[in-house]
């Protein structure tokens, strides 16, 4: 009979479990509760005792904290562990991480819940059950000590995993009582009282990452580094024109090349060479003549796509709008009107680790090693393509060499590797995309244009604002269910009226915001920050133009529109203050400011730039303010903010995937240029915690980077910039 601590035993039933093959959102969906039921210890070999699913303790007091979100550099593993450790009251220096595979989770009725990692959700959607998991483990460990000493548990204290009973001067440690604790019934999650975040000692502190050591000496194994006995390597070329097919290829031309085992067609669209090493496979593939049936997409180019989008700027039909008052009339009647058209290009993710996957199929087992932001979708893709039942599949956890939204539910590379492996029973196949393939076959950041119109009254107050976005929809390709009644709100991210996630921070008396869906043959997908990036540029650069037309200070003009949005305003003010808004600058240096919201968090930025007489831009300094509610690791939040500046600024300066003859033109870093260290401005991060919500961190700040810089350029040159990237713009 298990002892029940405080209340009733956690109910383990009422789970639903659906395996789907969805190409998009990820293969698995479920209803999920009771996140920390104990079960058979997973890691039998290391002698850790599983107290509950999040916490296992070794006899030497080492605390193994389980993590199920993907680590792609964003530091989520360290933050997740901090949340557990905070409530567990263990010794942080003894914490190690253990990643749980989706197959292992499935085998236990998916007790670890959702593993997908995107949308800056890692911490905010895990925090509640992780903190309760840590607290439940602490309660069980204390109860085990109390039982052993036969004293009331309330008389015990615990610090750093050492349990003390002051009255009898006894002490023990988590490692000593873990085995007894694991036999206790877990407390009812609902009865657990969590700590006030203001009293946190481990969470909320800038702890160093737990996963740095093996990144310093080359020993960390990414999926691209996986080595398996008898493994063969594969190089792939998919039809460069999206929607095209393989017509023919001349295998005889590469006959006798060293190491080559087989030429394989994957689906209708791709050709693969399999060899003993990847370099041999890749060089044979380069030598293989392939004839493509390029299809209808081959006639598309930047010009045809731009014309298609331009038509959407004035079309009668739209795919979603937000409306209050009569913006068109207000603008028509206004004594002063401002109008501008903006555009942003397709962008690739360019993860440093190219797409790859290693798959081994045998009669009764399928395994994959792949960089994945949605490892359950990886598992589902493996099962679906291989035909091996999902219960006999495992997708091994392996950290990603960058993700940025590229490696979510689609799992195209996992599907390809599985298709290839089907032709090689029992032989592990490692598929690696060349950088050129990676640049040619991304799910690109959607291209869009935006027409903005505003009316100002005689005093320079904004009376009407009309926003018309025309561009490609991510949902149309990856999540058609997200388009409801022909309306696709996702494309208006950051312009929403509803509070909480991506709310527009301005109140305008007459407002009309519209989206016209104009899809192309180029596949699109989420790209760090997704639509907040483009919409942030459109709104914040246009507000700048309007403020200038009104003859008002950029900051004051914004503030006047933000009285009903105190959180947006507080972050804007924090950026302005730390960014020295209004204070003197060195000669030739100019400031720009921007604010926007996404992923449940509020962001603002001040940029300092100079533009030389020759038109050369230098971004000197950027101050970013972020309110993500609770700040679990301020050091890692700063790292994410710095990273978002690099990713966002690189896109602002250089990012552009041009289309010609239906295919991507910029296939490597020689033309798809990436910002280097020399161009990195000094970044200062202001975390403005408000302790009353849980917002994201990885994505929110990127959307203010480009507009702050563009607005500073406007200040420097007197000319607005309305299209990106800057490398195409003559600044003076």
């Amino acid at each position: 009979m298990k002892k029940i601590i405080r209340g009733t035993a956690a109910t383990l039933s009422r789970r639903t479990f659906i395996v789907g093959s969805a190409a998009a959102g990820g293969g698995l969906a479920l209803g999920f509760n009771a996140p920390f039921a104990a079960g058979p210890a997973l890691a039998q070999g290391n002698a850790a005792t599983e107290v509950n699913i999040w916490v296992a303790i070794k006899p030497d007091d080492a605390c193994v904290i389980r993590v199920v979100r993907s680590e792609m550099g964003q530091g989520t593993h360290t933050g997740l562990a901090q949340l557990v450790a905070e409530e567990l009251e263990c010794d942080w220096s003894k914490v190690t991480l253990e990643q749980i595979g989706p197959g292992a989770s499935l085998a236990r009725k998916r007790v670890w819940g959702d593993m997908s990692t995107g949308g800056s959700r890692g911490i905010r959607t895990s925090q509640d059950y992780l903190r309760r998991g840590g607290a439940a483990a602490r309660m069980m460990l204390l109860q085990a000590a109390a039982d052993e000493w036969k004293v009331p548990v309330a008389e015990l204290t615990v610090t750093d995993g050492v349990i003390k009973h002051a009255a009898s001067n006894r002490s023990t440690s988590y490692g000593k009582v873990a085995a007894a604790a694991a036999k206790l019934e877990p407390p009812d999650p609902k009865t657990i009282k969590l700590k006030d975040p203001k009293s946190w000692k481990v969470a909320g502190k800038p702890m160093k990452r737990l996963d740095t050591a093996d990144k310093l000496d080359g020993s960390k194994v990414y999926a691209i580094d996986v080595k398996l006995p008898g493994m063969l390597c594969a190089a792939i070329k998919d039809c460069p024109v999206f929607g095209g097919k393989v017509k023919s290829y001349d295998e005889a031309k590469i006959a006798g090349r060293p190491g080559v085992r087989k030429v394989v067609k994957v689906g209708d669209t791709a050709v693969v060479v399999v060899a003993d090493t990847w370099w041999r496979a890749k060089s044979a593939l380069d030598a293989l003549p392939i004839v493509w049936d390029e299809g209808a997409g081959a006639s598309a180019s930047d010009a045809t796509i731009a014309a298609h989008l331009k038509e959407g700027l004035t079309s009668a039909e739209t795919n979603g709008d937000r409306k209050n008052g009569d913006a068109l009339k207000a603008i028509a009647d206004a004594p002063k009107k401002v109008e501008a058209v903006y555009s942003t290009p397709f962008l690739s993710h360019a993860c440093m680790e190219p797409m790859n996957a290693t798959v081994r199929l045998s009669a009764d087992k399928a395994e994959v090693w792949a960089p994945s932001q949605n490892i359950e979708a990886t598992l589902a893709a493996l099962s679906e393509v291989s035909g091996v039942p999902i219960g006999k599949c495992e997708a091994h956890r392996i950290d990603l060499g960058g993700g940025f939204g590229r490696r979510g539910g689609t799992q195209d590379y996992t599907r390809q590797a599985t298709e290839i492996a089907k032709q090689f029973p029992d032989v592990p196949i490692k598929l690696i995309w060349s950088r050129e393939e990676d640049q040619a076959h991304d799910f690109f950041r959607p291209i869009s244009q935006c027409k903005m119109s505003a009316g100002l009254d005689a005093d320079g107050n904004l009376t009407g604002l009309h926003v018309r976005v025309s561009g490609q929809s991510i949902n149309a390709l990856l999540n058609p269910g997200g388009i409801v009644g022909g309306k696709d709100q996702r494309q208006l991210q950051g312009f929403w009226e509803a509070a909480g996630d991506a709310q527009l921070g301005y109140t305008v008396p007459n407002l009309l915001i519209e989206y016209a869906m104009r899809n192309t043959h180029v596949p699109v997908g989420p790209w760090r920050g997704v639509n907040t990036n483009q919409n942030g540029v459109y709104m914040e650069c246009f507000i700048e133009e309007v403020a200038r037309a009104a003859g008002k200070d950029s900051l004051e003009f914004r503030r006047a529109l933000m009285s009903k949005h105190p959180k947006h305003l507080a972050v804007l003010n924090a950026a302005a203050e730390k960014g020295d808004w209004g204070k003197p600058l060195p000669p030739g240096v100019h400031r720009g400011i921007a604010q926007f919201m996404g992923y449940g968090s509020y962001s603002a930025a001040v940029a300092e730039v100079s533009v030389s007489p020759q038109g050369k831009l230098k971004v000197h300094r950027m101050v970013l303010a972020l309110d993500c509610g609770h700040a679990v690791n301020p050091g890692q939040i700063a790292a994410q903010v710095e990273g978002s500046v690099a990713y966002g600024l690189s896109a602002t300066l250089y990012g552009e995937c041009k289309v010609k003859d239906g295919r991507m033109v910029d296939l490597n870093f020689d033309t798809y240029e990436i910002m280097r260290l020399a161009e990195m401005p000094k970044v200062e991060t202001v975390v403005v915690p408000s302790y009353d919500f849980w917002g994201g961190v990885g994505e929110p700040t990127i959307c203010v980077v480009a507009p702050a810089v563009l607005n500073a350029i406007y200040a420097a040159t007197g000319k607005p910039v309305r299209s990106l990237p800057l490398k195409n713009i003559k600044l003076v």
Partner: protein
Amino acid sequence: MAKLNINGKVHDVEVEPDTPLLWVIREQIGLTGTKYGCGVAQCGACSVHIDGTVQRSCSIRVGDVRATDKIVTIEGLSPNASHPVQKAWATVDVPQCGYCQSGQIMAAAALLAKTPKPTDKDIDEAMTNICRCGTYQRIRTAVHTAANETSRT
């Protein structure tokens, strides 16, 4: 057939002479700390030292490497990650995803070997490897940290 001196050990490898050194290091030698990022000497993820100079191994034909060339990869930079650059990288908490960091560390180590107290401008010019996570600010700090550490000892 090529004879390569990597991390102080001589290897005889059976490989076509036009194979990039990067892929020989990764596939024939089996040292995977040196990364593939672009294959065209743009990103620097494949950086190694050859006779003390940082080189992009993706764009060096193995047939052009002499048996006497002393190649050092990230695995051979130091025992137990004890090189001042590696220690500074840990102190400053530089890596995010970590994929480019082998190359970044090799570039920084080569810079400090030549220029023990680099200025920001020296760092701008020497540290040209791509990092998509955007660790550039911390890389700059860590290079200075390593330089200060080295000058103290």
